[in-house]
């Protein structure tokens, strides 16, 4: 009964969503028309008044707000009921039967809501409704012209997902009998990183609907001034942070669970999460130029549309199964729905954009190439170029099959070869940009700014040549050192300038600098995190060593200065699977000193014995990881086969990821706001408009 009720709440949410969307767009349209007719306060226009004196545009807009809150409540009820079903083993529900089992740990039962198709769509809808509600509550008063359209756009997205849930992927579908047990969660998903990684990605993807909604609202209302970009700045940074964290956590999952020695394989679904990250990052930079200089207006709305489109395209890729992927656990017939939604949003947005082109003229021009806006512009072209390369490589197998009938896959080496140089250039710009001032940086200032970072990079090259004769990692590391040096210089010079002007101690000056200029220095922290990720990638790409061996008990193998001795094979029964783990002793090959014991293992799940998962054995240090995969064993473990890797500098990827999150928190942290005059305080200024120097 309760599950029928849950399904009907989704149907009710769909109806209210459709009404709210229409009310939002209609209310916005009436408001825009009224504002255009003599710029009179809309409530004074007799044509749109009701008997009690409040205009239709206001009433419809208010109704769209109420719709958002109601839809959020109804979807929330449905999600809570599905969670209840998962936690109490209601296997008469097809989704729960397919995604859970009695012996599944509670932790994974909770996470099973995003372990399958229908549940993950419901979870997505829940997050989108929560983001929509947060947006409505935050900007209800401050963005009165934009909000009707923002509501309409967010409700349109919600409507699409509710249509999927009601007509194609009902999470409450019943199978007519009550099975004694479920079929179990996909073994690959029974990993702690897999519990948190999809949530982060969803928060990122779903959150990016908000800036898209504001862009559509700005175009529809013709309010294309700087207010909407100031409003969405923070609301883009927060989902961007979640998306970054999701991508890094996904890499951790791939590294620990998939057992192929790396963290990123340019898998189609990995690319699907990376593509919107690229365009959102470009947007976060170019939006600063629009805010500061009033230029790149068309580019910015295009970027945020591209980001939203790539989110939907990525979801379509995952769900439709058009591209084979390690993430193929969630395929179903919802693909065509996504394709239609994608086509509608693309055509609709482009038509609107062309109609509004006259309102999107730039207010200024770039004064000089040697300026921060010049560097940001170049960085945007590079981001766009990388996004194009990744998109092309991802969909090439599909295009090749359509055109030639033969599916030609594009593998990781192609991506590395084509995107690698572009990333290197991007890193150079990441160092150059912060050294330049807005508008123009003269020759003398350029010399002063570049001397130390360039010297640091050049000095490092002879030392780097000792580590490799290959020029690519040497150049890569040198560029990373250059960028790191620019960041250190920025902190040092800023602190010195503050100390000089205020006579503060170093710690106070540094704290004050970051606190007062959170956006600028938070950006530098993010850049430093990206540098560390770059260092880890170069280390893994060019300095990794590997071997594949079969060892009898007591035998040892040497690799990159380590000796690994196979001690024994052990077996342990867990609640829903058996762990077969090898005990390997890691020692220093030269001195024989024992460093650690590591335990690569295979998990054989009771419900999926033919789908064993691999959990790598790992010894992680700042210098390198010893990473071992248990491939197989003979009989009761008298011998076992291993693939062993020594992965240099990998740990810095996870540290870098943490810094990216930390830096974003610094960026979005509210800064002290100057008090407004009484008249200004009553005007509808964006609530999210923070003061602080704009930077990357």
């Amino acid at each position: 009964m309760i599950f029928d009720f849950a399904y009907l709440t989704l149907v009710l949410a769909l109806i209210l969503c459709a009404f709210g969307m229409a009310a939002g767009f209609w209310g916005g349209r009436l408001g825009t028309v009224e504002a255009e007719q003599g710029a009179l306060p809309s409530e004074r226009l007799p044509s749109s008044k009701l008997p009690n004196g409040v205009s239709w545009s206001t009433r419809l807009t208010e109704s769209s707000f109420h719709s958002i809150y109601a839809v959020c409540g109804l979807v929330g009820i449905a999600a809570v009921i599905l969670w209840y079903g998962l936690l109490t083993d209601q296997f008469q529900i097809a989704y729960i039967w397919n995604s859970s089992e009695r012996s599944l740990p509670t932790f994974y039962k909770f996470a099973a809501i995003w372990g399958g198709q229908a549940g993950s769509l419901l979870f997505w809808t829940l997050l989108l409704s929560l983001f929509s509600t947060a947006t409505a509550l935050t900007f209800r008063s401050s963005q009165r012209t934009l909000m009707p359209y923002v509501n309409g756009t967010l409700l349109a997205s919600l409507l699409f997902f509710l249509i999927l849930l009601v007509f194609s992927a009902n999470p409450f579908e019943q199978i007519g009998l009550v099975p004694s047990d479920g079929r179990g969660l996909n073994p690959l998903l029974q990993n702690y990183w897999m519990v948190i990684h999809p949530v982060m990605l969803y928060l990122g993807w779903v959150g990016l609907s908000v800036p898209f909604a504001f862009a559509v609202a700005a175009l529809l209302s013709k309010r294309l001034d700087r207010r909407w970009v100031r409003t969405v700045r923070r609301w883009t940074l927060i989902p961007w942070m979640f998306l970054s964290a999701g991508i890094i956590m996904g890499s951790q999952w791939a590294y620990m669970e998939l057992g192929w020695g790396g963290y990123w394989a340019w898998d189609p679904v990995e690319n699907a999460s990376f593509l919107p990250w690229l365009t959102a990052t470009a947007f976060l930079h170019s939006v600063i130029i629009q805010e500061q200089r009033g230029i790149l207006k068309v580019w910015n709305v295009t970027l945020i549309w591209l980001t939203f489109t790539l989110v939907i395209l990525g979801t379509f890729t995952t769900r439709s199964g058009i591209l084979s992927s390690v993430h193929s656990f969630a395929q179903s017939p919802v693909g065509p729905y996504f394709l239609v939604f994608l086509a509608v949003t693309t055509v609709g947005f482009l038509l609107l954009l062309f109609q509004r082109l006259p309102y999107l003229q730039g207010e200024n021009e770039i004064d000089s190439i040697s300026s921060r806006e010049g560097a940001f512009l170049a960085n945007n072209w590079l981001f766009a170029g990388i996004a194009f390369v990744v998109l092309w490589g991802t969909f090439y197998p599909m295009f090749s099959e359509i055109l030639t009938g033969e599916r030609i896959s594009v593998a990781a080496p192609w991506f590395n070869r084509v995107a690698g140089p572009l990333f290197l250039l991007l890193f150079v710009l990441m160092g150059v940009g912060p050294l330049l001032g807005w508008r123009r940086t003269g020759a003398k200032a350029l010399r002063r700014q570049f001397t130390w970072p360039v010297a640091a990079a050049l000095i490092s090259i002879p030392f780097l040549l000792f580590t490799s004769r290959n020029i690519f990692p040497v150049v890569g590391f040198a560029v990373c050192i250059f960028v790191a040096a620019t960041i250190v210089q920025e902190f040092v010079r800023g602190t010195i300038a503050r100390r000089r002007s205020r006579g503060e101690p170093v710690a106070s000056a540094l704290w004050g600098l970051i606190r007062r200029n959170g956006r600028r220095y938070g950006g530098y922290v993010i850049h430093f995190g990206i540098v560390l990720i770059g260092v880890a990638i170069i280390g893994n790409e060019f300095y990794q060593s590997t071997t594949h061996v079969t060892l009898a008990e007591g035998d040892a193998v040497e690799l990159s200065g380590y000796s690994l001795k196979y001690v024994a094979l052990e077996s342990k029964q867990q609640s829903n699977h058996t762990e077969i783990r090898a005990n390997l002793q890691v020692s220093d090959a030269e001195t024989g000193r024992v460093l650690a014991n590591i335990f690569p293992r295979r998990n054989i799940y009771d419900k999926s014995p033919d789908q064993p998962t691999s959990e790598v054995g790992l010894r992680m240090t700042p210098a390198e990881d010893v990473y071992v995969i248990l491939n197989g064993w003979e009989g009761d473990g008298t011998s076992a086969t291993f693939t062993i890797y020594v992965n240099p500098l990998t740990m810095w990827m996870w540290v870098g990821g943490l810094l990216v999150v930390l830096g974003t928190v610094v960026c979005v942290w509210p800064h002290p706001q100057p008090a407004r005059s009484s008249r200004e305080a009553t005007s509808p200024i964006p609530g999210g408009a923070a003061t602080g120097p704009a930077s990357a």
Partner: protein
Amino acid sequence: MWLTIALISVFSIAAVGYVILPLFGRTRTVVSAEGEELADLITRKEVALEAIRELEFDHGVGKIEDADFERFNRILRLRAIRLIERIEAEFGGPDGLGPDTVQLDERLELEISRRRRVEERLPNEGCRSFPQE
């Protein structure tokens, strides 16, 4: 089954009523074109003031040469003054920024110094509330 229908009916009536309520009752929010234009001007003024601060900061750490600083500072201040002038011409008096007799450029300096003082009111420097001017 009947209980489900009864329950969803109650929910539907409550939810639909909540959503369509604003179509019949009085609401608080009022949209005015005048307010939107003022908001737009204030945003542009805030952007100009931020740009001045950015420029001063970049000059302070040596990214902008003196001659460029003088030129850009003049342009930005002029822009900010024009915006203050427009806000006052179209939407009334100075309102909290000092007496009417204060010149526009002095008013701009007042705004800039007020922003500086508020931004410097940092947790490690005490939390005195900033008095309204």
